[in-house]
């Protein structure tokens, strides 16, 4: 486990296998009795040129920045070379202790695609819909969730819209020269 402080916020990076243990400890011993939010973040293409997840598919073009993309071509001289991330997906659990001062902590786990994550629904029942939402929009599987089904998109929807390789709009176009 690793502890980071940034922007006055505490982040605890936890091994996914010990997530439940860490969460139980934080709730029972440290008093973080309210789970405020669960957010998964897709870091596919983080810090690379021609980042997928802008307009079009990964191989397609970015209509907001035609031509070459990435930091080096921008003229203000702010090179963009963010810290590399340990895995594709980060899942953040924002915890709150309902006591004056409102102490908060962010529990963060890192997983690769298709690796299931233990469900915290036993610890905080409110995780039910949060986990279903992240399953639906990000494609994170939560092991031990009793009703892991799509919640926002239709049941037969294909793909997970908030992933960076999911196109924002339009259909892929095949030109006559392409094979």
């Amino acid at each position, binding site marked *: 486990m690793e502890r980071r402080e940034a*922007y006055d916020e505490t982040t605890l990076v936890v091994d996914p296998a010990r997530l439940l243990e860490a969460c139980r400890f934080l709730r029972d011993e440290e008093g973080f009795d*309210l789970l405020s939010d669960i957010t998964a*973040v897709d870091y596919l293409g983080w810090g690379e040129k021609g980042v997928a997840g802008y307009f079009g598919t990964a191989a397609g073009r970015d209509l907001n920045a035609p031509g070459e993309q990435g930091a080096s071509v921008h003229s203000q001289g702010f090179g963009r070379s963010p810290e590399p991330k340990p895995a594709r997906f980060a899942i953040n659990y924002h915890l709150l202790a309902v006591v004056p001062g409102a102490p908060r902590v962010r529990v963060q786990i890192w997983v690769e695609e298709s690796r299931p994550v233990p469900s915290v629904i036993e610890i905080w029942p409110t995780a039910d819909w949060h986990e279903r939402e992240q399953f639906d929009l990000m494609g994170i599987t939560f092991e031990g969730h009793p009703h892991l089904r799509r919640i926002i998109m239709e049941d037969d929807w294909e793909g997970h819209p908030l992933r960076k390789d999911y196109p924002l709009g339009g259909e892929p176009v095949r030109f006559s020269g392409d094979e």
Partner: protein
Amino acid sequence: MAVTERPRIYEGSRIPSPIPSMLVLPEELRGSDEILQVNFGPNHPSTHGVLRLVVDLSGERVVGLRAVIGYLHTGFEKNMEQKTWWKAITYAPRVDYVSFQNNELVFVLAVEKLLGIEVPPKATWMRTLLAELNRIHSHLVFLGTAALELGAISMFWYCFRERDQILDLFEMVTGSRMHTRYYQVGGLAEDIPKGFDPEARKFCEWMPKAIDEYETILSRNEIWLERTQGIGLLSADDAIALGQSGPVVRASGIDWDLRRDEGYLSYPEVDFDVPVYPNGDVYDRYKVRIDEMRQSTRIVEQCLDAMPEGPWIADDRKVVLPPRHELHTSMESLIHHFKIVTEGFRVPEGEVYVTVESPRGELGCYLVSDGGPRPWRVKFRAPSFVALEATATCMSDALIADFIAIVGSLDTVMGEVDR
């Protein structure tokens, strides 16, 4: 850590198991002729948007409940990833179209936290003021529609009369009645107009009388009391386990308000009370909101008194648009204007989670920036989404007639649920 004693509204927990947000029809009742399945919504006036609830009834008693959401999903979070930080502010108020100022606020506060930009005091006070006007606005919409659904039609007209006055004030300040987009990163988009102060004071003088009127109509109304008291119980422990916040937990006896306990904007400097009621029923949720409207009026008055002179936006040319008149004379300003509008400003790499007390409870905004001109990830922690999860717990053993009162009392806005 010492566990604070919370009032017990009922013994034990009523959260359904194993699925906390769903009442599953018991095995022995499945396929029985006794059970009537009713499809409530998605288009029904009392769903406050487009919510579908599948209800299993045994006689008049609710024995099964399943919420189906997503009909208003518009992909705000995905869209905001494609826009510059500057343009993305426009999306934030549309997430919850009843408490737009608060949604705008939480996003702008989060961006400012990443940028580390200092906001002038005038902007902070004005944001506090508008957030409170917006809270009154939101509670008026709740009160009007919740009473309408239970048959008190005249309440709707009374509430919308005052709501219109608030919208007039918004129009005066921001130029639009809803989705104002008045907050800029670094302060406010425009200075406060001269006529605002007297008009807002007139409103503050009138509002307590209007609230007295609402209470005359409802608080001792036999029908209203019968239909709201002891209905839709939610205990303090269950509310916390279900992640509830705002008026819902305050009606369950938990003395909790982010404005006081987290202290953002100018709230530490103003004087207000946090209403807490112990019964955890529909009536107490109504009472909390009525009292909050009175407190919000008090805060608005104090903001007007304390409103300082000075600039309304920070003077940081890398983030804030230069004043309009400079564009004609200063090349430097013209370049900055052009750069901010076309390319957007850059926000340092990092992640933040910022929360405010919206009219519906804890509204959070989680941002990830990669150091570029666009957000990498935006997530709104929507209090309505979480409130709707508590429906099943509040509805255990309820009658079909109470059902609308309970859904209404959780005050969900579907735009925010589905985002």
